[in-house]
């Protein structure tokens, strides 16, 4: 029947149009719900060198995640990610032992980020820093 042919054609057109409409609706909703897009280069953080006394660690936020700035007893300044490489908990600074301890499963990290003991598979990621005229620039 002629109708059948027409029906099929219209059916195909409609299927196509509906699919397009579905995409047109889904796209804004996904963008709406998605997290905000990060810029390519994260902003730098500037601190004063006197903010971190020797043998102490200062926890800061950098590039949307937790980071730590540590000044060793020898005066060396190191910036590391404070996120434990095992399952993502934030490590703690143990002052009398001068190392990092993860409270979740007991992972131990040295001041340069290397794993001393426990389950963490990788060392803490290093973050580049520069020291100029008493000002630390992280990033």
């Amino acid at each position, binding site marked *: 029947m002629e*109708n059948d042919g*027409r*029906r099929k054609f*219209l*059916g195909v*057109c*409609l299927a196509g*149009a*509906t699919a*397009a*409409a579905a995409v*047109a609706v889904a796209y804004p909703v996904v963008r709406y719900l998605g997290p905000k897009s990060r810029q390519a280069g994260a902003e730098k953080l500037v601190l004063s060198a006197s903010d971190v006394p020797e043998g102490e660690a200062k926890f800061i936020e950098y590039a949307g995640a937790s980071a730590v700035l540590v000044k060793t007893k020898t005066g060396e300044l190191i910036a590391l990610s404070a996120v434990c490489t095992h399952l993502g908990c934030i490590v703690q600074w143990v002052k009398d032992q001068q190392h990092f301890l993860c409270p979740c499963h007991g992972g131990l990290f040295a001041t340069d980020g290397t794993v001393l003991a426990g389950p963490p598979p990788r060392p803490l990621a290093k973050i580049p820093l520069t020291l100029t005229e008493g000002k630390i620039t992280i990033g």
Partner: protein
Amino acid sequence: MMIKASMRILALPLLPIGALILATMPILHPTEAICAEQPETVCIQCHASLPDKLGAPVNLWRNSIHAENGISCNSCHGGDPKNAAEAMSPSKGFIGVPSETNVPAFCGRCHPGVQKDYLASGHGRALGKGGPTCVTCHGNHQVLKASLDLINEKSCTRCHSFERAKAIKDAMQQTEGYIEGIGRRISGFQATGVDTERLGKGLFAVRNRFHTLFHEVNVARVKTESTQINTELAKLDADLKVIEESHAKRRVAGAIAVSCLLLIALLVHLLRRTYK
């Protein structure tokens, strides 16, 4: 078909009524008036019923920009706005009418920048020697929002010829127009939900800087400052253009969406017809 025709005719009354309801929607847009309903000060309550010189300021004030922003008599003249017994008491800060030479200081309590510019200008140097005070040009109670119209032949020729004032006015006309235009566009956007806080503040700052030029009455200075101000305005303009462009894109997307939907409606309708 017979049945369809009669049905259509009888459905007719429903359609205009339905359309009327939908059409009145744009008209039924609640509009807002300006005045704020705030409790009146005792100053107004008493003076509004007094005759001549004592009562006239009340109506003049009601039309002013001070009234629009909730600034009543006590803000300038002091006194207690809530207690009639203390309303004109010096112990509550009542100042009364300032003398001519004290007018700039009187207004300068809230407008210090303007006072400074005025005192440094030709007008300010002539204070007390026949020169104008703030109220000479701005009025005392019916103070309106500052605009270039205050510089006009009738007002300025009270003391001197109009040519220098006219030069200043012409130099400032274009920038003033630019500022007003940007102000209108910002309000327009604010009414559609765009966050205009930063732009509004930026314009406010530029506008104030521009208006300090009014009190300089120095043609050369006006010309140089105006160029700088115009660059700032151009930046605001560019920001607004970005918003306008994105809004235009939205309308295009809207047009596509509406036409696609009408197309789908047509396809569905034709599909339905194949089942008759």
